[in-house]
């Protein structure tokens, strides 16, 4: 009986972990292909295009600043571009590139770059 319970429990845990792990990788791939050219390999706003730019891209690892932004704001900035959140046009709108699901996953991915500690502490970014 105990073995059966354990089996069910492990299956449940694996089933719960599996899709989230796959999703995280997709957001990471998207970040790497589209965001990295300006926000940098480590998300520090130090991408390869930056030396020629007159507005510095956001440092996604800047915990102090990123903590002041809501998920909705980050979502809007990605989907509609910088001007939608009163920021620079140098941040283009990616709404045509990402699906709705990819957009929300991307917000989650950006949170793991900046605010992982706060996520564990249970801060509600909404």
């Amino acid at each position: 009986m105990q073995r059966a319970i354990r089996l069910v429990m492990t299956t449940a845990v694996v089933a719960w972990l599996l899709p989230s792990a796959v999703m995280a990788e997709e957001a990471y791939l998207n970040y790497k292909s589209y965001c990295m050219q300006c926000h940098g390999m480590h998300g520090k706003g130090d991408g390869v295009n930056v030396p020629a730019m007159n507005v510095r891209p956001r440092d996604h690892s800047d915990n102090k600043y990123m903590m002041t932004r809501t998920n909705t704001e980050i979502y809007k900035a990605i989907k509609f571009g910088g001007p939608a959140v009163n920021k620079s046009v140098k941040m283009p709108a990616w709404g045509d590139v990402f699906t709705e699901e990819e957009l929300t996953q991307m917000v989650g991915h950006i949170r793991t770059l900046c605010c992982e500690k706060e996520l564990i502490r249970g801060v509600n970014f909404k």
Partner: protein
Amino acid sequence: MKRVLFSILLAVAISPALVSAGEDGTEILNQRCAECHNLTGPAPQTIRDLWKRDAPDLFYAGNKFRREWLVSWLQKPERLRPAGVNYLRTINSTPKKHQDTKKDAKQFDVLWGAVLKPLRHDILTGAEAEVVADALMQLKANEEQVAGMMLDTSKTVTLEQGEVLIDKVYGCQSCHQIEPGFGGYTGPELYTAGSRLQPEFMLSYIKRPRNWDPKIWMPNGNVKPEDLQKIVNYLILLAKEDYHATSD
């Protein structure tokens, strides 16, 4: 007499080989270009496929390039994308010895490796370039994307106005260079775009890059129809500038 007969026979035997090598651009394409270039389509549909791409897709070359530019470029190939076709392979964090050791110092990503050397590309002879350009102009995929496109030459702009559009209004310059060394690295250079590309292609591609290349890292800039015409007119005007004369 025998010698004459022999030379005639020899000429007859060789000539088909000469003709086929000289006149069949498609054959040259298949033998020398297909290894790296995609000549049949479709464009990469996933990010992983996109990262595997070694050279620009050519299956819609006939709807993309100007023939005269192809002929001259094939004889003297030069790099068009400062970060290479696949920028993901050519960037790296700043090497340790150049890093700023101060706390919180930015470590900018840099270009490295083969992309810093001159482009490695087959160099064709004049005759070969002509036939290959002819063969490339026959590759007309995505016909429906350029069908409705028409350049309105009345929407003219000056170089200054165009630069404002590219830099301040739509931010294209973050990734594209509008003169050598002035702009970003991950997109192809814009100062030769007007002589390289057909106006209809530029209109269609800027309007929605996904229609041509579903996973490309160029976003849809939501360019207004009027500005779209102005930008393409500007790019054609920009290509008439001689940067090699003024760059020094």
